[in-house]
């Protein structure tokens, strides 16, 4: 019980730190950067769920991030245009608002689409792929190819999507100037709040029977079939949830950073997110969040100091993490704590039960 209390106390501490200390201590643009990392952390949380818990290595999460971001961006663009065509369409020679854009003039539709469109795409893909038992490396490669194809499609349809430029230059975010400091501050709180809520929901999911089933699917998909469950359904649902999270992350990213463009959704950014999750610790949801924040923070600060070095450092870090600490930072922490406990236990002449280490792998 005290364990539990301490857990909640620490969650509260982090919440306090993020919601009170950081806004007070950080200058506006650093807070904005932190908000950006937290957006990416939301997407990473989804990856932690799909990959860490469900074993689906999704290398195309950028696609869902993008779908959410573009849904939000399209609304903001239409709103700014106020009945006219968005600026990029004018210089792309589009004369009438494309049918695809029509519904996004409505904020409710756009906000719903932020989650529903990624979920729908994920369900469709999942139904096609998981039902045919495409998995593991094949799924990873397919999802990567999806990201590549999606970017090509986005870039190629310039009149529809803004091409490489993406959607940018927003003036009005639900009645406020998105670049104003007060808006940025509000957005920071919104992002942190959404992340907190999603984290708690994801934890609930992982702790539930569904979560146990998901781990079972990850470790023995075929065996699960003989328990009477349809693994394709379980995977599709999880994949859709993680896609929805990525969509939400993308939508929040737009007002925070002020742009959504294909360069955020391609193969490399998607992979970078996955790697961040691996570095943080894929088997723990907290690890995914931690990884996304720390890796993106490191990327920003390193590229400020020594741009070329970041690639070496990033590469070397993956190699080290994958070789020495496949369970990431959280895994290392657990190992260290276990080692400590064992030493204490040994001195107290307590018999170490075998399998405690295995138990530690059970994700939280």
């Amino acid at each position, binding site marked *: 019980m005290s364990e539990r209390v301490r857990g909640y106390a620490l969650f509260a501490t982090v919440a306090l730190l993020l919601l009170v200390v950081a806004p007070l201590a950080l200058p506006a643009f650093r807070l904005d950067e932190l908000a950006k990392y937290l957006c990416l952390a939301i997407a990473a949380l989804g990856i932690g769920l799909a990959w860490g818990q469900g074993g689906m*290595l999704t*290398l195309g999460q950028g696609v869902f991030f993008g779908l959410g971001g573009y849904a939000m961006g399209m609304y903001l663009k239409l709103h700014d245009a106020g009945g006219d065509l968005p600026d990029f369409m004018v210089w792309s020679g589009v004369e009438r608002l494309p049918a695809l854009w029509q519904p996004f003039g409505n904020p409710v539709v756009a906000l719903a689409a932020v989650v529903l469109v990624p979920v729908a795409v994920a369900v469709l893909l999942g139904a*096609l*792929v998981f039902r*045919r*038992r*495409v*998995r*593991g*490396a*094949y799924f*990873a*490669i*397919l999802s*990567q*190819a*999806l990201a*590549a*194809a999606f970017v*090509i*499609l986005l*870039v*190629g349809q310039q009149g529809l999507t803004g091409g490489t430029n993406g959607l940018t230059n927003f003036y009005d975010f639900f009645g406020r100037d998105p670049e104003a400091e007060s808006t940025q501050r509000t957005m920071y709180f919104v992002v942190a709040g959404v992340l907190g809520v999603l984290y708690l929901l994801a934890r609930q999911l992982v702790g539930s029977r569904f979560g146990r089933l998901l781990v079972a699917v990850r470790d*023995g*998909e*075929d*065996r699960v079939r*003989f328990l009477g469950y349809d693994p394709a359904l379980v995977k599709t649902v999880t994949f859709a949830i993680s896609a929805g999270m990525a969509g939400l992350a993308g939508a929040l990213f737009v007002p925070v950073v002020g742009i959504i463009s294909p360069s955020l959704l391609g*193969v*490399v950014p998607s*992979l970078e997110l*996955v*790697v961040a999750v*691996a570095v943080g610790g894929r088997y723990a949801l907290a690890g995914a969040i931690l990884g996304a924040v720390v890796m993106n923070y490191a990327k920003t600060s390193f590229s400020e100091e020594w741009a*070329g070095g970041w*690639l*070496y450092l*990033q*590469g*070397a*870090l*993956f*190699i080290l993490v*994958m*070789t020495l600490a*496949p369970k990431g930072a959280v895994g290392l922490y657990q190992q260290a704590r276990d080692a400590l406990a064992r030493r204490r236990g040994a001195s107290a002449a307590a018999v170490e039960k075998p399998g405690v280490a295995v138990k530690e792998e059970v994700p939280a």
Partner: protein
Amino acid sequence: MESLLNQLPIGLSIGAVLLLIALGLTFTFGQMGVINMAHGEFIMAGAYTAYMLQDWAGAQAAAVALPVAFALAGTMGWVLERTAIRHFYGRPLDTLLLTWGVSLVLQQAARDLFGAPNVQVVAPSWLNGGVTIGGGTLPYNRLFIMALAIACVAGIWAYQNRSAQGRRMRAVMQNRELAACSGVATARVDQLTFFIGSGLAGVAGVALTLIGPVGPSIGTYYIVDAFLVVVAGGLGQLRGAVIAALALGMLNSFAEFWTNASLAKVIVFAAIIVFLQFRPQGMFVLRSRALT
């Protein structure tokens, strides 16, 4: 109509390029389950080998570089296998991230060694020009790549079917445990497979200098396509890789002819997804009585 017919040899030549870049992966992926994202950087190493040898071999560098690139990229692959990948068997998805890290380091190393801009590799003069088929020209350098692809496939086929080492390789590919029990030194076979698979990437890299850029990021241009060939072709299947590469080459060539290059890429991806609806079994037969 005439230029439509010209797409046939073009499709073949695109297929040959795809085959060359994917051939090595078929084995490292097929036998060892390693998703080697650094394969693209081994291709890059091959390309830079041709560049470096220019000082010494002049315009013949591209030809001279073939064996050198095979040895160099093969050695890089071997080192990678020995130092890192061998700790990862049974964790294929982790190798993906590991080798991506390796690829980042290699790319940046190339940038520091050779500079960020592309470098120039002069094609041997005997590859200038081409044969005229119908109304179009099939350049000699494309023919050279096709011949090279055929030679590589033939070489691998002979190796797998005619040499003792190759038969061991096939044995490990089909059933690792059984092969190990039958006295095959699987670790040895793995090293050799990785050497050959990476070496083939080096060969592909040399060939690509004839038709594409030579720079630190060339690996990233080819890696996704190479993996798609492997996925469509099936695990460790020489035959599958050949058919998949040619089919994707043809599809690419005609799709681009009728639409445009951007849409062609999307069409190829969609085709693979559809293909997997019909033939996932080609790759996912449950042969073992024990479940995974």
